[in-house]
């Protein structure tokens, strides 16, 4: 400790007080400055982010509007636009499947489960409902709306009674590159391959080239969005999402269906 210089006590205190006052004044000025900086900064930041968000939202491409009067393939209901397959009574468990025809995992799902689900539905063990989505084509602008076209081609085939044949046929000819899409010729050829012939084929051709069921696909995609279905393929058994480990295993899926009770009424996911 350095030796204290002899000074009158009061003058020392005054010096200290003065210094303290100066410090307090400087601090208060800094505080005022900081308050202004923060306020201006916060206003600018919030305004910038607000404008960006507004621009992004306003700049969004509007989804095609739902039309309640859409033409529907045979047997499709206007509540959820699902394609029902099989002869199961309303008391059987209900399995809703959401798929996009351009989704590679949906192809895997179809390869793994297509035959076994068809058998279960044919045996009346499950009410099978397929729901087409088309969100993948938005990611692939060069795919020529292949998700939608595939789904409405399928709709035309449903009218000819080729529900499962055409459905699995589309996945079988899926492009190895995601977003590679389908050609119109592929859809027409597939119709002939699954046995749509003669007058039925002319009807199919008119139906497909006229995009008769395009609005149905748009309505179904809207359901997909509204329900916030997490992706494709997604399955709901009596309205409860099926875990992917179960969904992709034919035996586990069959067991889950067997263990499920009757579909809740009104049967809706």
């Amino acid at each position, binding site marked *: 400790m*350095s030796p204290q210089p002899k000074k009158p006590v009061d003058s020392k205190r005054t010096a200290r007080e003065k210094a303290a006052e100066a410090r307090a004044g400087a*601090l208060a000025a*800094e*505080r005022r*400055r*900081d308050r202004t*900086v*923060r306020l201006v*900064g*916060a206003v600018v*930041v*919030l305004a*910038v*982010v*607000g404008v*960006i*968000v507004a621009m*992004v*939202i306003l700049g*969004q*491409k509007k989804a095609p509007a739902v039309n309640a009067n859409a033409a529907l393939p045979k047997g499709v209901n206007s509540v959820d636009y699902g394609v029902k397959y099989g002869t199961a009574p309303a008391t059987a468990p209900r399995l809703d499947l959401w798929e996009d025809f351009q989704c590679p*995992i949906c192809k895997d799902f179809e390869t793994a489960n297509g035959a076994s689900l068809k058998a279960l539905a044919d045996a009346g063990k499950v009410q099978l409902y397929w729901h087409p989505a088309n969100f993948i084509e*938005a990611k692939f602008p060069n795919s020529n709306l292949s998700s939608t076209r595939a789904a409405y081609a399928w709709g035309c085939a449903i009218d000819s009674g080729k529900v499962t044949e055409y459905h699995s046929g589309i996945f079988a000819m899926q492009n190895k590159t995601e977003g590679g899409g389908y050609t119109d010729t592929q859809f027409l050829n597939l119709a002939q391959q699954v046995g749509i012939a003669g007058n039925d084929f002319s009807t199919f051709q008119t139906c497909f080239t006229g995009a008769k069921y395009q609005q149905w696909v748009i309505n179904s995609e809207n359901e997909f969005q*509204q*329900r*916030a*279905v*997490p*992706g494709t393929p*997604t399955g709901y058994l009596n309205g409860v*999402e099926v*875990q*992917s*480990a179960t969904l992709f295993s034919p035996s586990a899926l069959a067991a889950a269906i067997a263990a499920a009770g009757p579909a809740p009424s009104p049967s809706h996911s």
Partner: protein
Amino acid sequence: MPPATSRRTGLGWREHLPTVGLVVRLILAAVWLYAGLVKLFEPGGARLAVIAYRIFPPSLVTPLGYALPAAEVVIGLFLLLGIFTRLAAIASALLMLAFVAGIASVWARGYNIDCGCFGGGGDTSAAGRNLRYTKEIARDTAFALLSVWLIWRPRTLFSLDRIPEPEDQPA
């Protein structure tokens, strides 16, 4: 008055705290700005990613799809400018912990999702899932720890704030 040299040595490592703080602040600012802007400019914002977590009801996923990236950009800008540093750091730490909880939750429930951390989102294949989730949780935990540093030491070099926020004052 004590000699200047001894005072300097007395401070030691503490002298470098604002510099460390600056680095931490800029790292977090870059993370939040990048993550937020990427999501904001995707269709629906982070909607797809939010849906994949299966935590929020359908009615909330669209608003959250925009609110989440917007909040991320706000945190990023506050940190970049160095205003409301401690507040932004608290939000940053909480949000990172929420992401860790979200990823742990989908992992525990057996879903295979793209965390959508920096855009993207939705379901994905099961391949490499455990390693992927582990890495994401480790990364977000590290970011949360960086945020905790800023909560502890909100004074950083080159910030627009010059004095500690009120709650930083010694009592």
